[in-house]
């Protein structure tokens, strides 16, 4: 069964990840390009990063996304849930356009679309494509409860993992 917890994890992973990206990008673009990579410059850059409020908030969002991802990966319902996180690429591009006011060129939108569709294909678990195709495949959980539910989830919301999830014994 796809418990509500699974969807809460998906929602938190995707939204918190994108919030983190937007906050960090916005915070980092205020202070000028980091272009001094001598030790003293790196120290200054790190000091900048850890004192900038938006970057810290972004870090908190990343942490929320990360732990929510761990939670997501430990549930047995990955075959819909994990591909849903491919949407974070689209969400990021939309946020960059409408919140950060970047002038996203058409070619870049096309690239984002390709990446998103590619991720959907890549993260689909199981050895065979599902009949009907698409990420919205139904009834993913007719797995033998006693056995292993084996699934590979790559790069979810910025993190990638390849895991073997034990179903309930």
């Amino acid at each position, binding site marked *: 069964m796809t418990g509500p*917890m699974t969807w809460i994890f998906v929602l938190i992973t995707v939204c918190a990840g994108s919030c983190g*990206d*937007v906050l*960090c*990008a916005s*915070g*980092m*673009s205020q*202070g*000028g*390009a*980091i*272009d001094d990579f001598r030790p003293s410059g790196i120290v200054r850059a790190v000091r900048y*990063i850890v004192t900038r409020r938006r*970057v810290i908030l972004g870090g908190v969002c990343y942490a929320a996304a990360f732990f929510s991802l*761990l*939670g997501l*990966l*430990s*549930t*047995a319902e990955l075959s819909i849930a994990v591909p849903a996180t491919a949407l974070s*690429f689209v969400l*990021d*591009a939309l*946020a*960059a356009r409408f919140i*950060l*006011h*970047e002038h*996203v*060129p058409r*070619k*870049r939108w096309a*690239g*984002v679309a*390709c*990446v998103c*569709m*590619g*991720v*959907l*294909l*890549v*993260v*689909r678990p199981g*050895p*065979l*494509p599902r009949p009907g195709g698409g990420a919205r495949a139904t009834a993913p959980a007719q797995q033998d409860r006693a056995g292993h539910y084996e699934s*590979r989830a*790559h*790069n979810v919301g*910025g*993190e*990638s*993992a*390849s*895991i073997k*999830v*034990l179903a*309930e014994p």
Partner: protein
Amino acid sequence: MGPSANDRRTGRTALFLCIVVLTNSFGNMLLAMGMERMPSFAQVGLQTYVAGLVQNPFVLPGVVLAGISALTQLSLFSWADLSFVIPCTASSYVISMILAEFIVGEQVHLVRWAGVSLIFVGVVLVARTPLATKPHAGGLGVPVAGS
């Protein structure tokens, strides 16, 4: 005169993207190896789970690599667009897939290779757009690429 500031920034962006992608992929491989040895969160509860994470020999190095990846990505944000950086980091899927096939020894299904090819095309498309489409404060003094 050496290479122009624009060339330097393009080269540095490529280098930093490589660092982000490689540390991310290897870090995630370690995290994945660690997570394979973890019990289900729902079964053991928070305390046992966190204790298991701390004792796991793969999780900590994985987290360190993820940290390097994050810091490198933050410096990229200081001169490049979010909508440029994020799609480009998706090339870590390509690396993860190669790691899975040739190091972990998983059989990677054809559909996934198709997905990886799409991601590759997408990254190439994004990489052929200007690094920054709006002014970023200060820095190397590179004019914002408008075309």
